[in-house]
């Protein structure tokens, strides 16, 4: 009989201790947050993304196919980044690198841990798509949820395989000329990692498309439909089979490669540049009393929540893409993406309070009002990429007024989000519980009012 995976054993123990430490109620409530967010988003998502439900039964099958395809690609994109953070840039490497770990067991554990911690994704999708079951078709809903769960299952495994493969690619002689073409000013090895999530998306897009077609076929009782719906699971199984083999070399090689990449980045930067963080240039326009705290928060956010901070650019791009469509509703869709994105990203500002080292709070004489305002200013700054990127796109495609209105609404939401974050930042324990329902309510009101009022 094979030995149980020791990494899972330790993880299970850690979770149990964490639950004892945080209390069962808090653990359960924290786990329910994504589902609660999904639930409050349903009224917002329904009119914008599930509009085909109003267009009769003929529109149902293609409508579901489209939404499953889009959600599936989104799931792949998110999980690909997640698996990269867990498997390649793993926070556990500092511990595991000292020991003769079994690379296959470690890789499977980290892949499984990520999947476990993201098991809310299929559940949240099931909640977001509930209007389909209620208003149109339980069968269509069920197949859509199964297809998206299958896509998630595939994505974790395919991402693990591709990221581990990227380690080999980063070192390979034959890939060097290609990586040099792609890398820009990054170290060569980094190019392999930068493009790996895109490669995951490209490699699995076909399976996601087939699964979405499977949903469409299933509605017409075509037997091929069910096969296509679960096809991603089969592809995931195949990818999982090769994870063990690829991990044998890649797990160990990843640490020194990453160390080299980080060191090269440091060597590339001037000493002063190494200390600078995103948006630090804005400090020169702030009064000294505020600048100190804003600088602290900009550094805190950039160093500990960089993904959340830079995602504002991704939301901006997504919103601009939504605005590029020739459809009349494109400015509204872009605005909805922007509003939801802005409120979701601002959550970083609330969560930063939990990263704050306790000694800082105890040792520094904190100017409370300045600290509060600073948090709001930092968050406001981070959100602007999501606000302004779609403006020229919508202007070009739909004219100035829709562009200005859409951007104005998202900009106003970024101010509201920043103010809310500032108010909630002083209540680390309950800030989250105040912030989430309030912004969900505001987002719902803004989106519904905009649609009903035909503001765009």
């Amino acid at each position: 009989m094979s030995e149980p995976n020791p990494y899972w054993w330790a993880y299970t123990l850690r979770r149990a201790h964490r639950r004892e430490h945080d209390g069962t109620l808090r653990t359960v409530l924290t786990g329910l947050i994504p589902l609660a967010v999904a639930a409050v988003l349903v009224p917002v998502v329904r009119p914008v993304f599930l509009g085909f439900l109003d267009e009769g039964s003929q529109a149902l099958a293609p409508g579901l196919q489209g939404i499953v395809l889009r959600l599936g690609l989104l799931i792949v994109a998110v999980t690909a980044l997640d698996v990269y953070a867990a498997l390649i840039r793993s926070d556990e490497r500092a511990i595991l690198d000292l020991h003769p770990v079994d690379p296959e067991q470690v890789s499977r554990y980290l892949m499984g841990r990520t999947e476990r911690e993201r098991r809310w994704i299929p559940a949240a999708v099931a909640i977001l798509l509930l209007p389909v079951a209620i208003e149109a078709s339980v069968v269509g809903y069920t197949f859509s949820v199964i297809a998206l769960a299958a896509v998630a299952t595939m994505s974790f495994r395919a991402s693990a395989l591709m990221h581990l493969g990227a380690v080999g690619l980063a070192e390979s002689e034959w890939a060097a000329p290609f990586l040099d073409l792609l890398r820009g000013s990054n170290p060569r090895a980094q190019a392999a990692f930068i493009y790996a999530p895109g490669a995951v998306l490209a490699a699995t897009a076909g399976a996601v498309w087939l699964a979405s077609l499977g949903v469409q076929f299933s509605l017409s009782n075509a037997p091929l439909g069910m096969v296509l719906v679960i096809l991603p699971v089969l592809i995931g199984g195949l990818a999982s089979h090769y994870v063990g083999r690829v991990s044998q070399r890649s797990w160990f090689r990843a640490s020194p490669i990453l160390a080299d990449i980080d060191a090269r980045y440091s060597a590339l930067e001037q000493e002063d540049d190494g200390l600078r963080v995103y948006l630090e240039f804005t400090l020169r326009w702030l009064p000294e009393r505020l600048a100190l705290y804003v600088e602290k928060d900009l550094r805190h956010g950039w160093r500990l929540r960089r993904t959340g901070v830079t995602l504002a650019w991704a939301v901006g791009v997504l919103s601009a893409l939504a605005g590029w469509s020739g459809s009349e509703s494109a400015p509204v869709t872009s605005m909805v993406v922007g509003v939801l994105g802005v409120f979701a990203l601002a959550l970083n500002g609330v969560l930063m309070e939990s990263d704050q080292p306790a000694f800082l709070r105890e040792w520094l004489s904190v100017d409370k009002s300045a600290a509060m305002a600073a948090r709001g200013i930092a968050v406001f700054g981070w959100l602007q990429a999501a606000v302004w990127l779609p403006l020229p796109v919508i202007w070009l495609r739909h004219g100035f007024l829709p562009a200005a209105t859409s951007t104005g609404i998202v900009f106003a939401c970024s101010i509201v989000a920043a103010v809310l974050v500032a108010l909630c930042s002083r209540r680390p324990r309950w800030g989250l519980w105040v912030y989430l329902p309030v912004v969900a309510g505001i987002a719902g009101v803004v989106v519904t009012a905009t649609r009903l009022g035909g503001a765009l």
Partner: protein
Amino acid sequence: MSAAIVFEGVRKTYGRVVAVDRVDVSIDAGAFVGLIGHNGAGKSTSLKMLMGTLLPTEGRVTVCGIDVSDNPRDARAVMGAVPEEPAVYEYLTGREFLEFVAKVRGCEGVIPALEQVGMLGDSDRLTREYSQGMRRKIALAAALLGDPKVIVLDEALNGLDPPSAARIKGVLRERVDDGATVLLSTHVIDTVERVADRVIMLAHGRVVADEVVAELAEGGLERLFLERLEATRDAR
């Protein structure tokens, strides 16, 4: 006597920055060696290459004849290591963390290891409640598990209270007497003088001295360190 640790023409560069420059060192099995040097001398870089978390730009590093770059798993199996900033799982107790390491290394002996570092009494507390010194002791205990042939310690005695430091020095000396090899990097010259048999001095990435400690006069190590450092500066 066979070599436990060998650096063979090892060079590590980051672009134009040379962190370690053509280091050739061979350490026999059963030796207690101190590695000293100024900040940025290349001590941690050298130890990271020994632990396999950095790859040499040129040359190779072997542990008990195993090439660390080519066979990192086999190399880690014969080596126990404590990095400069040891990491532990915050939501495990000290004992559970060592049990985890023992499972990974396929060995036993958690209780004796806890006793050796003086942590048995605190072993059922979560490591997140530990002080920096206590975490370091748990990391040391983890490095001692499975009786590794080579023990690598990067500033591992820093932050320990004097009785704990003395106890651990004693444990390390016992391991050396049993045939293990210890490579201890430190800023504290006094520590090297007291426990090490041999001292290797790095300055600006190069080995500038390699001496038998017993052959140095009292206080001689500090004098030698300052002289060599000065000479290296002048040469640059």
